């Protein structure tokens, strides 16, 4: 019996690989398993290798797993590229119509040639090979074509029952073929009970429904991989909610529109990735100085510049924290799993209005474009609050021109806000430094007061957890990360604990305001700190040094190949560090 199942389908881009993976993954989710996925693809439309990995587990995981048990190959490249990942006892299913297929010599892997294309043709169309292959898989792991029926009905039901049946039939043929010709099997672990609240959802989808739950009713966005799907979700859902989507002409327009909509009183966001984010730098400062709420989602991809548009990275941390000339208060959230993507995106809108400042939510391609299991979202936690609006009564009590939108006397830096339509609440939002009623000015004293007012907003910020920690109280080795690498780090942590290492795992959920008070005790207590990041310069580590110190204690595990982390590579590094620690102690 396998604890996890790692399954992967691969072929050329444009061949239906993605939907094969989706059907398999969703079906296993519906059977009650926890499912995590990872899609490998390239920045071209047709041709080029793509594959979809599905990890099936009995506990919720934030990673698609190192191990591969079943590889389903539609072409030779898939075999070449992925075969080495198969564990001993794993299965390679490949299409016998691959010309001169060559399979590496490895007698610990079950080689399963199946005439996928031929059987598919029998079923009426070569596209059916996807179903045939799922059928063969089902046979190996003890499922039946019927276990996939509900997903197929959702997908193809609108085209008629017949289409569904045809697909089931193709699956059955694959199933039968395997049973008839092979007799090795993998036993899936017992199914957890499927809770009705559970969601199977990508990071980008979670961003979208998080935004919707957070009251966002305006999205202006420009297409860019891997953030485009956020827009698709909004286009789909907004009409019912009275919301509007604008496909902007570029990212500058997109962010300026989001600012304009927020100014007008709509909760609005824009979503983008690195190149688009870089184009938003001037506008970011405008939102800051004009105290206009703004939510930007940066679905990070591998940079710099156009970089690797279909690969993942965590290298925009610096520019999210420090990009844009001059100084503004800003909040930068780094959700660590898809559930947090949902909650933090939702909360971003409350924070943006509460503090009247920009909020950046950092996700990445890894989390954004792949699907994960979320245990449940509590509807009762979804109420929103709208921040510091002036009441109409208060405005009516003022003389014309008396309303101080940028009142510097407010203790927490957050002054009363109005929106167009409110009588006597006129003000001018502005990129220039302005006086309290919003008139451009250049006087030294007033300027300093306005700067101080804005800076005050985020002092003592604790609306969003800064970091979370698991581990012994004075763990010697501290694993640190932020954002989407947290899931895999937990597996590394578990493995180290199992080996008796004195280890703790500290994971940051926000980087601005930097959670110094949350992280300092752990940083200070640790003997060695291993910071794991998907970038080449150790951006998080540099911030820990800057905000906390302890320079001599840091080690970094950095990956910037564009691929996500593997448990084993981080674990190997962590063990090295742990070993060096022991040596130091014995010296």
């Amino acid at each position, binding site marked *: 019996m396998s604890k996890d199942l790692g399954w992967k389908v691969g072929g050329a881009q444009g061949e239906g690989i993605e939907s094969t993976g989706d059907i398999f993954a969703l079906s296993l989710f519906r059977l009650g398993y926890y499912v995590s996925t990872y899609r490998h693809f390239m920045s071209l439309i047709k041709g080029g290798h793509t594959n979809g990995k599905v990890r099936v587990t009995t506990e919720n995981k934030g990673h698609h797993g190192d191990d591969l048990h079943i590889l389903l190959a539609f072409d030779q490249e898939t075999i070449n590229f992925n075969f080495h990942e198969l564990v001993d006892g794993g299965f390679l299913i490949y299409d016998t119509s691959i010309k001169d297929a060559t399979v590496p010599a490895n007698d610990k892997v079950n080689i399963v040639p199946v005439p996928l294309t031929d059987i598919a043709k029998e079923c009426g169309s070569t596209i059916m090979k996807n179903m045939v292959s799922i059928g063969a898989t089902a046979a190996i792991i003890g499922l039946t074509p019927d276990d996939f029926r509900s997903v197929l009905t959702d997908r193809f039901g609108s085209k008629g029952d017949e289409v569904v049946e045809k697909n089931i039939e193709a699956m059955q043929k694959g199933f039968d073929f395997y049973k008839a010709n092979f007799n090795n099997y993998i036993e899936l672990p017992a199914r957890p009970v499927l809770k009705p609240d559970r969601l199977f959802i990508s990071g980008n989808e979670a961003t979208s429904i998080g935004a919707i739950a957070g009251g966002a009713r*305006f999205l202006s966005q420009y297409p860019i991989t891997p953030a485009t799907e956020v827009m698709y979700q909004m286009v789909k859902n907004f009409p019912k*909610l009275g919301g509007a989507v604008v496909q902007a002409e570029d990212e500058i327009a997109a962010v*300026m529109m*989001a600012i304009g909509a927020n100014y007008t009183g709509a909760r609005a966001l824009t979503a983008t990735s690195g190149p688009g984010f870089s184009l938003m730098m001037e506008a970011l400062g405008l939102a800051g100085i004009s105290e206009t709420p703004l939510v930007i989602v940066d679905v990070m991809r591998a940079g710099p510049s156009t970089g690797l548009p279909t690969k993942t990275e965590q290298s925009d941390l610096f520019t999210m924290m420090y990009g844009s000339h001059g100084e503004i208060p800003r909040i930068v959230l780094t959700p660590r799993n898809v559930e947090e993507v949902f909650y933090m995106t939702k909360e971003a809108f409350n924070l943006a209005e509460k503090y009247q400042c920009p909020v950046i939510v950092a996700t990445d391609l890894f989390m954004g474009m792949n699907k994960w299991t979320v245990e449940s979202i509590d509807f009762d936690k979804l109420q929103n609050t709208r921040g510091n609006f002036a009441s109409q009564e208060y405005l009516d009590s003022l003389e014309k021109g008396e309303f101080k939108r940028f009142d510097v006397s407010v203790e927490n830096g957050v002054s009363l806000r109005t929106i167009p339509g409110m009588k006597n609440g006129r003000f001018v939002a502005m990129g220039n430094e302005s006086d309290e009623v919003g008139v451009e000015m250049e006087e030294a004293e007033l300027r300093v007061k306005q700067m101080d007012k804005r800076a005050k907003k985020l002092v003592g910020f604790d609306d969003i957890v800064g970091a979370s920690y698991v581990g012994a109280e004075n763990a010697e080795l501290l694993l640190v990360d932020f954002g989407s690498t947290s899931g895999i780090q937990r597996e590394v942590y578990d493995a180290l604990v199992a080996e008796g290492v004195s280890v703790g795992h500290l994971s940051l959920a926000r980087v601005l305001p930097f959670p110094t008070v949350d992280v300092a005790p752990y940083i200070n207590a640790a003997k060695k700190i291993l910071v794991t990041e998907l970038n080449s310069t150790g951006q998080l580590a540099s911030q820990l040094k800057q905000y906390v110190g302890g320079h001599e204690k840091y080690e970094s595990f950095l990956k910037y190949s564009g691929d996500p982390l593997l448990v084993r590579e981080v674990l190997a590094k962590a063990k090295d560090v742990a070993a060096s620690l022991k040596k130091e102690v014995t010296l």
Partner: protein
Amino acid sequence: MATLADFRAEKPNWCPGCGDFTVLAALQKAAANIGLEPEQMVTVSGVGCSGKISQYMGSYGFHSLHGRSIPVATAVKLSNTDLTVVAAGGDGDGYGIGIGHFLHALRRNIDITYIVMDNHIYGLTTGQTSPTSDKGTKTKTNPDGSTDEPVHPLQMAIIAGCGYVAQGYSGNLKQLTELIEGGMKHKGFSLINIYSPCVTFNKVNTYDFYKQNLVNVDEDASYDKTDRFAAIKKIEECDEHLTGLIYHSTEKLPYHEANSAFPTTPVVQADVNLSQDTWTKLVSQFK
């Protein structure tokens, strides 16, 4: 009902004689004339001398970034279609750095009025060549005279499908007021380009120059404002030196009406909280 005085705010600090004073006056009059309340209107401006207009206009205002008034104005309108939205700025702001936003808003037919104070110069940065500077214009950046073809905003707007294309002049407050009023009433994108002399840095395109050169098509009964090609030709014939409503068509619906998916109630009025039922439906797609 609001009066002209309600649309006054800060005292302008433009140079004495600057054409922008008249533009502001016309905008204030137009707003009062069509019976707006100050809080129903938003003036969004870019950066430049002209961009200061949002501070002086007694409506809600957004003095945004250089070249970026249009996307802000677009979003203001789309977020609250009950508002009357004016975007305003200079020739550098609108036809230089901002020309992309201008053309795309036009294509979408966003229901805003765009006022360009076209002084053929960068005023606030003290007198460089602008995208509407005449050929031969000499400035510190072009001491030998610019050789660039100026932007032709009126013709370009017509080509791009704008339904209300007008040109005014700071020397004619009455006409300018009417043109702005017309623009605000027009359902869809309206462009009002205004020859608004910079008395400090442009010694060529002066009041005198315009007095001598402008043709007023509003006074020409034979001129057909609804004929696109005639309009394009007329502009060419006059070497752009004409005023009035040059092209008018009410054929197209504005963006928020044309798009069937666009909400019929203002977006700002949408509830930020979801009902249990809506929530359940929303997440059902992820199960």
